[in-house]
């Protein structure tokens, strides 16, 4: 290249830089409005809607189409299309019978209510046309009990027996308030016995050819790209039979790309909408935005075993020093609710008393009570994604007010999960999603879960006792009191620093009707119609 040309091109590069920069600045003034306008006018949501099909778009691909071979949210969505459980959670997250027509709880020899007699609906048809019987249920639950991925949802069942073709008897280890919730979990969904029997020779049969009795039949899976489903014509429950014939399930990991796909009409429904494009989508009259506060609780988790975090004053100081409003603003673009308790809001047993709100002065008082030198505190906050990194960024700045120099490290999911389960950490940004308070408390705080899901490593016998008591209390009113007591105790102990409950942000074309999302993030595609 000659010198002259290079010089010329260099000058052009600099010119371009300047022009684009000034362009950015120029856009600046009306940025918000123009963005909204272009969303509303230039791109009407694409071609005419195909009334027979709904294109759903999601961020993560399911690892598996089996019901018991994964514990992924992405897989749960798909399982809910193809399969059913004996029970299901209704719109308010209460368990109600699904495949089961009626059930009775009986007392065992010890007088405890631990025997469950369940009777299936008559004539439930699997996708292959065969009729579901008690044998299928027994085989499915036995299979689930042997599957490590969903083991925690099968532990309470000790015995599974067939009574007659439609009836099953389950025995739990003592009274179990969580059994119906557990049976609503995808891990315990019902597969045909005929398929389970073939597992020995064909390990992949449940993944390659999933057959359930659910509202939609599996058609095909283009890995990494999309899945297709078609309505199950013989769905057992006429009232809840699917209304739209086909579902195309597309995987688009990038948030902004999902938004563009919806606005250009390529997709009809986004399960996880990028919070950055919310403002723009809300201005688009062709799009309906659904914002539902989730029951997913997110926090800065602290290893309670490591000094000085074993000191309650240090924990309370950090908790009071975090500006949760700012965390929500930066991490979630303001689309979430700030945490007000050690347990999630919106569940049976919520309780906010004893939880300190953001208050720097109070935080400093706690630090003074502790009496140590804040500069000696080593806190490394592990983050496994961008949202967590942004939250940690705010906390890092907040803690500097107390003289604590916290660090942030990024880890991929595998490392993060290993380090946190093993206790090789001082802190991390994490969260827990569950549909009801008992499994939340058990998972997050029960001392027997230290080493797996109890990452604070809190070991408090009084709390353990309350949690166990709640799971054995079948009366809802009684149970609520026990759960509140547990939450109050937790607020006093301050084992970690709850930050927020994010919103579930789903968006879809305005023509799509009857959409609904539960606080647990579940939606019911079979109810949708154009």
């Amino acid at each position, binding site marked *: 290249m000659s010198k002259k040309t290079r010089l010329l091109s260099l000058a052009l590069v600099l010119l*371009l830089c300047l022009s684009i920069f000034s362009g950015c600045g120029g856009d600046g003034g009306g940025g918000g409005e123009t963005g909204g306008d272009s969303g509303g006018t230039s791109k009407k949501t694409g071609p005419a809607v195909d009334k027979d099909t709904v294109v759903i778009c999601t961020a993560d691909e399911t690892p598996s189409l089996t019901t018991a071979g994964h514990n992924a949210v992405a897989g749960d969505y798909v399982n809910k299309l193809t399969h059913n459980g004996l029970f299901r959670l209704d719109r308010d997250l209460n368990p109600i019978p699904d495949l089961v027509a009626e059930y009775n709880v009986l007392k065992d020899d010890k007088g405890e209510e631990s025997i469950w007699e369940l009777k299936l609906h008559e004539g439930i048809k699997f996708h292959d046309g065969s009729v579901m019987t008690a044998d299928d249920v027994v085989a499915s639950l036995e299979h689930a009990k042997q599957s490590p991925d969903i083991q925690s949802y099968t532990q309470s069942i000790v015995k599974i027996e067939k009574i007659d073709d439609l009836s099953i008897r389950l025995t739990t280890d003592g009274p179990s308030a969580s059994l119906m919730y557990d049976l609503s979990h995808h891990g315990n969904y019902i597969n045909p016995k005929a398929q389970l029997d073939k597992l020995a020779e064909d390990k992949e049969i449940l*993944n390659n050819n999933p057959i359930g009795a659910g509202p939609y039949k599996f058609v095909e899976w283009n890995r990494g790209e999309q899945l297709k489903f078609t309505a199950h014509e013989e769905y057992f429950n006429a009232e809840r039979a699917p209304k739209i014939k086909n579902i195309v399930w597309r995987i688009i990991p990038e948030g902004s790309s999902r938004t563009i796909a919806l606005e250009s009409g390529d997709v009809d429904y986004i399960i996880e909408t990028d919070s950055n494009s919310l403002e723009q989508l809300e201005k688009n009259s062709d799009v309906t935005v659904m914002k539902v506060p989730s029951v997913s609780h997110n926090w800065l988790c602290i290893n309670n075993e490591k000094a000085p975090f074993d000191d309650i004053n240090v924990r309370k100081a950090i908790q009071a020093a975090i500006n949760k409003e700012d965390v929500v603003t930066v991490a979630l673009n303001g689309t979430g609710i700030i945490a007000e308790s050690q347990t999630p809001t919106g569940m049976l047993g919520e309780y906010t008393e004893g939880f300190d709100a953001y208050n720097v002065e109070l935080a400093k008082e706690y630090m003074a009570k502790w009496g140590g030198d804040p500069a000696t505190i080593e806190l490394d906050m592990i983050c496994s994604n961008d949202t967590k990194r942004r939250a940690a960024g705010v906390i890092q700045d907040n803690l500097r007010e107390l003289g604590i120099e916290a660090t942030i490290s990024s880890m991929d999911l595998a490392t993060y*999960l290993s380090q946190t389960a093993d206790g090789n950490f001082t802190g991390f940004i994490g969260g827990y999603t569950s549909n009801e308070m008992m499994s939340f408390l058990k998972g997050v705080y029960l001392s027997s879960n230290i080493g797996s899901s109890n990452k604070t490593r809190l070991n408090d016998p009084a709390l353990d006792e309350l949690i166990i008591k709640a799971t054995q209390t079948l009366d809802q009113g009684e149970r609520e009191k026990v759960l509140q007591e547990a939450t109050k105790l937790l607020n006093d102990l301050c084992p970690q620093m709850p930050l927020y409950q994010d919103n579930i942000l789903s968006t879809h074309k305005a023509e799509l009707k009857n959409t609904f999302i539960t606080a647990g993030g579940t939606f019911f595609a079979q109810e949708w119609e154009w």
Partner: protein
Amino acid sequence: MWKYILKRLLYMIPVLFGVSFLVFLILSLAPGDPAKAILGDQGTPEAIAQLREELGLNDPILVQYFRYAKNLVRGDLGMSYKTKGPVSKEIIARVPTTLKLTLSAIIIAVIVAIPLGIIAAVKQNTIFDGLSMFIALIGISIPIFWLGLLLLAQFAQKLGWFPAAGADSWKSFVLPGFALGFHSMASIARITRSSMLEVIRQDYIRTARSKGMTYNNVVRKHALPNALIPTITVTGLQVGYLLAGSVLTETVFSLPGIGRLIIYSIQGRDIPVVLGCILVFTIAFSVVNLLVDLLYAYVDPRIKAQYS
């Protein structure tokens, strides 16, 4: 010649085992347990122990590798930790996308680069030359994913000409192909220009000119064919860059290809899948290098002589 090809192909075998062992070692020694990654926050210690046993993770690393290598010899890439299905299935499903992406990148790069390089050389030191080389300089210096994001914002979001994600039609590959091919385009344009310049100065071109051929004819009939030889080589060598670049491009454009699979699998410590993908990349890379060498020998008899 055939002997040479066979020798090169045979040499790939130890390299492949070396590569797989190296990557296996790196990922196995890294913190992060595949079983915990699969079971997530709610995995109980018993479930983790059971899954580790199922996946064979409790054996010493060398034992695990030899088991893997033994299967590899039989052409079996093993089972994915995450999906529990065969790795080959995961990879085969994604090869077409990466192939289409790489091809469209090469096509776009070549279509743009060669005219650019020729114009720059023929009109040396003019504004055309400056403009062409300016584009080439940008191509070399722009981060590929930023270019991708800019293209998405402009052509998918604002103008709506192309889809923002997916791989269902040729349209899906225009933007990613351009983003990925831009860097290669720059290299190809620069080499075309400099080899064109070199050829134009040769004696036979002067001879042809002196015989009264028009400048354009000289360029087309004499200069171009000779100048394109290095261009072909550089294009071939760009394939390695394109394969690595597909990782970022597929991430930006949500394309279901090998590049994206590899990132997810690294993050989830799905070691068999990572190994499978890297082996596919390595084979592709080595085969293309071999093809480039052969092509080179084909067009340059002096090199051909060395092989026999």
